[in-house]
């Protein structure tokens, strides 16, 4: 069942073949040329992700995607005050949003797996009154403590649908903003497909398997159905993976260095967590440069260019924070992640991070409630953990799901063993991806440690790892290849069907939790 080349995939297509055929503004010509070079299969996989996320957005009650009310508040603040929120001691939302949240009983529902949304006629009338109240939209502080310190890119994008819905109610604006998130989910899958095309060029059909596996991943569908800056981080991280893979396959050019810098800049301007992508990306850039030009200082000019572009907007934001916006220079350090009043120690942090991801250490303080965080928090969270992490399947589902995940891991490992000569030849690339993963996990672990030192709470949520989803797509593609030429088609199809089933039953779980 060998998978061969796809006729609509033209990795080496000549630029003139992709030239725009129709009239239109000349400025859009490069964009059209770029779009024309993207395979149809990538667009189709992206469309699948958008449709799926749009479905999730209709099923998920307003403000039940994690921290959605805070991200909405930030956008609202940015739209009305033309600057990001100033970090304050406590969050206050606008009267308009607050009335909607009270009428929706949002606080009563979140974290409470046994409490559904509002259903009664009386509650519906209260909701309508809350929505019709024409209350102030500018009197909140933009959820300053929760997300106010974060960079503004995601919120600046969300300001567009917010403004489009400005004549409607809070729910109208929320629905439009959620659609933008769904579109961003589609772009993430598009970049995942392109990443797979560059990273695994010999098996085109498996790109579709990997990209569809990501498009139907339920937690991804759930997150991209809501207003949360994580969504744009997924997109920018996927773009970074794609560009790095392209550079490893075709060489690091000035154009690619600029593109990588732009992707990283967008990531860094989206969420503080993106800083975790930087060490691995810098490692990749340096390895690329050294591979091309040897161990010379001159070789570092393209990595330096990319890094400069990546950090330029951040430096501009820091300058604006300090001079015009009246925010702490590094916004996020003033909120939950301030280290001013805690006394971190390296040993304690290392122990915490080990327990955050892997196993509880013997005799260690119970910093996390789980004995095997890798399975209980991360793997089970990937299998199914919705709402504010309170909506979960029955325990047996997580046990059963271990079987296909173990098979996927074995098949992917088989590919790496069978094709070890290729893997060895591409060891620098693999090392780079490992560096991105390690750097990102370390950053999230340290951020969680700081929060734990403050509050005793953990932020172990699988959604924080979804920027690494392109590698999950690669795992699925490798597993498909691992089945061998005879079974590749059947195994790849089975993987996609399982992903679809996983997604559909996750939607049913959500429906039963909120509406039955």
């Amino acid at each position: 069942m060998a998978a061969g080349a796809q006729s609509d995939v033209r990795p080496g297509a000549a630029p003139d073949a992709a030239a725009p055929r129709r009239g239109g503004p000349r400025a859009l010509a490069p964009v059209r040329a770029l779009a024309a070079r993207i395979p149809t299969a990538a667009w189709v996989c992206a469309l699948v992700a958008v449709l799926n996320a749009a479905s999730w957005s209709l099923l998920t009650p307003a403000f039940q995607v994690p921290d959605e009310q805070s991200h909405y508040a930030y956008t609202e603040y940015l739209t009305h005050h033309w600057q990001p929120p100033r970090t304050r001691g406590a969050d206050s939302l606008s009267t308009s949003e607050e009335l909607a949240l009270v009428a929706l009983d949002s606080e009563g529902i979140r974290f409470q797996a046994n409490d559904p949304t509002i259903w009664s006629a009386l509650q519906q009338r209260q909701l309508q009154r809350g929505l019709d109240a024409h209350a102030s939209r500018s009197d909140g502080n933009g959820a300053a403590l929760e997300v106010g310190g974060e960079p503004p890119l995601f919120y600046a994008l969300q300001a567009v649908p917010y403004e489009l819905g400005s004549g409607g109610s809070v729910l109208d604006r929320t629905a439009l903003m959620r659609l933008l998130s769904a579109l961003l989910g589609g772009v993430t899958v598009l970049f995942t497909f392109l990443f797979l095309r560059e990273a695994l060029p010999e098996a085109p059909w498996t790109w579709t398997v990997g990209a569809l596996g990501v498009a139907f991943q339920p937690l991804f569908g759930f997150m991209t159905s809501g207003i949360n800056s994580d969504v744009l981080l997924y997109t920018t991280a996927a773009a970074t993976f794609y560009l790095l893979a392209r550079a490893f396959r075709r060489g690091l050019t000035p154009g690619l260095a600029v593109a990588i810098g732009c992707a990283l800049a967008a990531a860094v301007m989206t969420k503080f967590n993106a800083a975790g992508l930087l060490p691995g990306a810098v490692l990749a850039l340096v390895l690329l440069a050294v591979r091309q030009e040897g161990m010379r200082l001159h070789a570092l000019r393209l990595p330096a260019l990319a890094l400069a572009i990546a950090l330029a907007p951040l430096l501009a934001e820091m300058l604006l924070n300090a001079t015009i916006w009246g925010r702490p220079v590094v916004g996020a350090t003033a909120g939950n992640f301030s280290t001013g009043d805690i006394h971190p120690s390296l040993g304690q942090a290392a122990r915490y991070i080990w327990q955050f991801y892997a196993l509880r250490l013997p005799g260690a303080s119970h910093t996390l409630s789980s004995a095997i965080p890798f399975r209980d928090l991360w793997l089970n969270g990937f299998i199914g953990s919705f709402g504010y992490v309170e909506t979960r399947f029955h325990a047996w589902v997580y046990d059963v799901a271990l079987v296909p995940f173990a098979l996927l891991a074995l098949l992917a490992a088989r590919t790496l063993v069978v094709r070890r000569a290729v893997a060895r030849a591409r060891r620098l690339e693999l090392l780079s991806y490992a560096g991105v993963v390690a750097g990102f996990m370390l950053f999230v672990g340290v951020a969680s440690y700081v929060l734990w030192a403050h509050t005793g709470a953990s932020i172990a949520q699988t959604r924080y790892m979804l920027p690494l989803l392109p590698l999950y797509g690669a795992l699925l593609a490798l597993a498909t290849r691992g089945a061998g030429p005879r079974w590749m088609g059947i195994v790849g199809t089975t993987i996609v069907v399982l992903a679809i089933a996983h997604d559909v039953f996750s939607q049913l779980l959500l429906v039963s939790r909120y509406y039955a």
Partner: protein
Amino acid sequence: MEDRRRVLAATLAIGLTLLALGLVVTLSQTAARRTGTDGTSVTEALAVTSSDGTFCQPRELVPAGTGAVRLSLKATTRRSSTVAVAVMRGRTTLARGARTSRWSGEQLDVPLRSTLHADVVGRICVTLGGHAPIALGGMPTGTKVAARTGRQALSGRLRIEYLRPGRESWWSLASTVAHRITIGHPLPGSPAALLAVLLTLASILVGSWQLVRRAT
């Protein structure tokens, strides 16, 4: 090459058929379905009693369509007890029901003799009879809104869930669930649930088509 595509299409068809069968089995399972809850969690036993007593909880919203009440009552022995429930507004009893049984779980469903046809804002009174020790589950609240026994306030409110009469499959609940999904959406009464189903179906069809069309 065509053979390969056929094998893939067959694999896909078998997989999607199995998924559809799994959905039919899941959606056909019957259970008691809710009309609402009082939004109280069970964090502690508010009272443990082994003698007759009545506990009344004020400020309850009992949704229309309620035909049974689910109480968080933990029986520590399997001795038989009688549990009666009354839905009251002022001094008027709008619905009542009772159940005599042995149970060892943490919840008990008490059917009402009649189904409520409109939302009721009132109080729920629970009367326990028999000599089996029973713990009433709920969460701490202020005295004003707490459940009471006689004139004495408990430390919080009882967890109460409101159920539709009888047991239902998802199929028979479908129109109700579809309506509930539209509440809190920009267009109340819109076919949001149907649209969600269509979007999911479209994503499956488009994804399947893409998988098979370049299967060679």
